[in-house]
């Protein structure tokens, strides 16, 4: 098979959809789970095929263009570069992991659940792969639907409130983006990202374009003060939903900034960058301090996401090679480590049906495997050298320092706070006496649960020890972006 003409991206994109439809061939829950697992594994394998023939030149690879609409010239146009590559792989990797995690703890409406997981995956992949603005917008909005149902139907407690807030908040944020996309089209005659970034838009349009796009993306990230939907959605969502939310959905916001805001609206970017940096730093500190006082460990992880994404956005705001590369890698890192944290919180929740730190303590003795893995995941999240988080945070801080040492100093404060609140979680869960009788008979992780976590832990080490494997492909794309945008901003 000739891989240069084979529509590999379409395969990656549509395989989950076909799999979702295939679920209707089966009646029993087991076959449905197996189908979902097989499909997500195949999708991951397909996305791995992107790597061997990758030429690290920063351009768009594996492009596919199909004419679609008439009247308005939007097209089915896919492509992947060093910025989106790892996000695509992150998405397809988390697919089988959440399917495997949900193997036993989803018992109601099994088919609907896995159907939604699969189409959610397709939607997110579409966001990362689209090079046509309308196609992008379609996938962007579409991702709301499955997540809305995942939270609303399988969530806990205030799930309806959380689901509705998530849907309306993010929809409101991106509504205006559509009008700007249309304005761009009628000014340049194209919805094509490759054409638009060369178009040299006028200043006013750039200004409004940046504002509306950034609003949509900032809500998704979420940047302070647009974060209020996140704690609700993350905490009430079922574990699989939280993993996908934190792991991939939030990255769509970061990706949006990198893919659209910076290259399409460079002049406006120059104006707004300090604001982004400021909000990012506020997000780091606010997220960390709020995480410190959480009694519910899932809320703690949710607020830690705000802080971590603040880091990523600080990297974006640095607008230099280190900052941007670090932002891309740290997006992936956060997907892996926070995904793992949510999984581990879910595992404990499945056993005890509570997530309050006060209920736990001393698990180290009762669940040694769990505890050891939890320590590794926390260390990855905190940024211990040798693990993935360190590489990402260090690169971002380096980038920030080169622009403004104060940014880096405040960011470092966030690293310290992260160690504080995450170790507080470790203390609450693992250390101390095992004095709650309800915890004295907890079973340690079974093979399936270890299998769920194993690939993530392996990747912590892989990224931590061999970051060049990943930066190799990210950096050329970042350089290309900076070559276009850097001069406008003066970096």
């Amino acid at each position, binding site marked *: 098979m000739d891989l240069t003409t084979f529509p590999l991206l379409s395969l990656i994109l549509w395989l989950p959809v076909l799999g979702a439809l295939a679920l209707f061939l089966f009646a029993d829950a087991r076959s449905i789970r197996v189908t979902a697992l097989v499909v997500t594994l195949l999708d991951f394998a397909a996305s791995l095929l992107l790597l061997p023939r990758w030429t690290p030149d920063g351009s768009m690879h594996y492009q596919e263009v199909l*004419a*679609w*609409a*008439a*009247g*308005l010239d939007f097209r089915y146009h896919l492509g992947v570069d060093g910025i989106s590559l790892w996000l695509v792989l992150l998405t397809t990797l988390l697919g089988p992991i959440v399917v495997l995690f949900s193997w036993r703890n989803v018992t109601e409406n099994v088919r609907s659940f896995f159907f939604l997981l699969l189409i959610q995956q397709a939607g997110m992949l579409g966001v990362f792969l689209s090079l046509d603005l*309308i196609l992008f*917008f*379609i*996938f962007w*909005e*579409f991702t*709301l*639907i499955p997540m*809305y*149902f995942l939270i*609303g*139907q399988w969530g806990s407690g205030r*799930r*309806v409130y959380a*689901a*509705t807030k998530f*849907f*309306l908040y993010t*929809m*409101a944020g991106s*509504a*205006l983006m*559509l*009008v700007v996309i*249309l*304005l761009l*089209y*009628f000014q340049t005659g194209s919805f094509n990202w490759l054409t638009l970034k060369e178009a040299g838009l006028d200043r006013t349009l750039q200004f409004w374009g940046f504002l509306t796009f950034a609003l949509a993306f900032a809500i998704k990230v979420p940047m302070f003060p647009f974060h209020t939907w996140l704690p609700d959605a993350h905490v009430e969502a079922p574990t699989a939903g939280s993993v996908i939310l934190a792991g991939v959905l939030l990255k769509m916001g970061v990706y949006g900034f990198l893919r659209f805001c910076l290259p399409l609206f460079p002049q406006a970017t120059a104006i707004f960058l300090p604001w982004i940096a400021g909000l990012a730093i506020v997000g780091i500190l606010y997220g960390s301090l709020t995480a410190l006082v959480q009694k519910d460990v899932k809320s703690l992880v949710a607020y830690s996401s705000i802080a971590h994404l603040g880091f990523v956005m600080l990297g974006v705001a640095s607008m230099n090679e280190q900052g941007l590369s670090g932002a891309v890698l740290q997006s992936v890192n956060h997907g892996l480590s926070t995904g793992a944290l949510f999984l581990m919180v879910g595992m404990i929740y499945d056993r005890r049906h509570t997530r309050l730190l006060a209920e736990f303590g001393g698990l180290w003795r009762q669940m040694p495997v769990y505890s050891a893995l939890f320590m590794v995941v926390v260390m990855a999240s905190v940024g211990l050298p040798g693990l993935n988080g360190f590489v990402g945070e260090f690169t971002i801080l380096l980038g920030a320092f080169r622009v403004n040492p104060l940014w880096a100093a405040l960011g470092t404060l966030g690293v310290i706070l992260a160690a504080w609140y995450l170790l507080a979680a470790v203390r609450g869960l693992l250390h101390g006496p095992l004095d709650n009788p309800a915890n004295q008979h907890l079973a340690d992780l079974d093979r399936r649960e270890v299998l769920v976590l194993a690939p993530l832990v392996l990747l912590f080490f892989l990224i931590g020890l061999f970051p060049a494997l990943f930066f190799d492909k990210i950096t050329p794309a970042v350089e290309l972006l900076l070559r276009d945008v850097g001069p406008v901003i003066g970096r």
Partner: protein
Amino acid sequence: MSLPTLDFSLILPELVVLITALLVLIADLLWPRAASRGREQAPAVLALAGLILAGLLTLLAGEWSGATLQGMLVADALARYLNLVVLLAAALGLLLSWSYLPHFSTQRSEYYALYLLAVAGMLFLGKSIELITLFVSLEILSIALYVLTGFHRGQLAGGEAALKYFLLGAFSSGFLLYGAALFYAATGATRLADIAAQNAGGFYMLAGLALFLVGLGFKLAVAPFHMWAPDAYQGAPTPVTAFMSVGTKAAALVALFRVVQAAGSVPVGVWATALAFLSLLTMTLGNLAALRQSSLKRMLAYSSIAHAGYLLVGVVAGTAAGFDAVLFYLFAYAFMNIGAFAIASLLERPGFYAVQDAGIHAADGLFGRRPWLAVAMAMFMLSLAGIPPLAGFFGKLYLFAAAVESGWAWLAVAGVLNSVISAYYYLRVVVGMFMAEPSASAHLRLPLPASATLAVALTALGTLLFGLLATPWFQGISR
């Protein structure tokens, strides 16, 4: 004096519908009511066959062109697509009536005959290019709909709705007729082409156009002329509501388009600005009012008002692209809105004396009882809210694109923000179906008649696929 040309081939679909209406009445004489059960639905079968035949004739006619009946009617691309959308809506509404009507009425043929007359009125309205013909067509469809609105005689709300609709409708007809008179006064012509050719300016044209906007705005349920709509939509038998919410809008929009084109001498800025504000007012008011409704049907009625506002955006744009978008949206709207009313009708408990209206919570727990029905309804709701990749999104995309292209970006902004507001009340239904505890009546059996199921299946398929598949070939229809 030579004999006028009468090219009946150009109005064949309309004639088929009219003749079917007469046949349906005669059928009742041939098969008296006491006849065997099998023949009970004979009028419905006949009516459906007529609608399908008319639709096929429209499809097979190829590219229509030319005027007939002394320049009173025109068969053009616009009329062709209007035919298709009205016949589609009519056929879907008829499928709903099939199982709905027997709940409260033994009179089949009257109902279907009136229904077909309303259809014929809409089809003729879409082809009218002369003021008197336009008025007569509008009256044919209106009078049939007044009667149909009050067709459930046992129900007080239906009577009230019909009376309100009739009185306000008659009033608005007056406006429209006055507008026609002023056009005539200004130009001495009743044919739209002649009026346009005169290029007369001045107060009479302006006032005439304003009165036309009021008259047609009433039929479209455009705020502030929408007062009748919530009551009429709620009081009318649900299949009638489903049909008229789409069909009347479609026909009146085509008429509006033709009239504003003819009144070319009135500066575009004047009427377009007026329409833009009406559009803004209509969508905002419709959506805000829909937020507060406790009846599913009434909520859908207000949603329907909001959608009239979106549709006007395409007319405001004033371009061919704008009206393409209107027609595209009408198709999408026919699927999603009739689908939503179809499910509302299945949740109702119609009785001989009164319909127990479907409250906003009637659908609660529907996913547990009838999962596919709930999935279909969720699709209709999300599509009405304009979420991709459903038909409603593509409809809005084209409408707002046309507005942006013509420099009405602020109206597009108003449109997308309104879509966000509307998402709240549409989601409320979805929350009920999928996430809430079942309603008190959930233990009751939910019958699913075959005809209504077919209607739901067709509308659901249309809502899912129309936007994705029709996008490539749907262009240049009104050029």
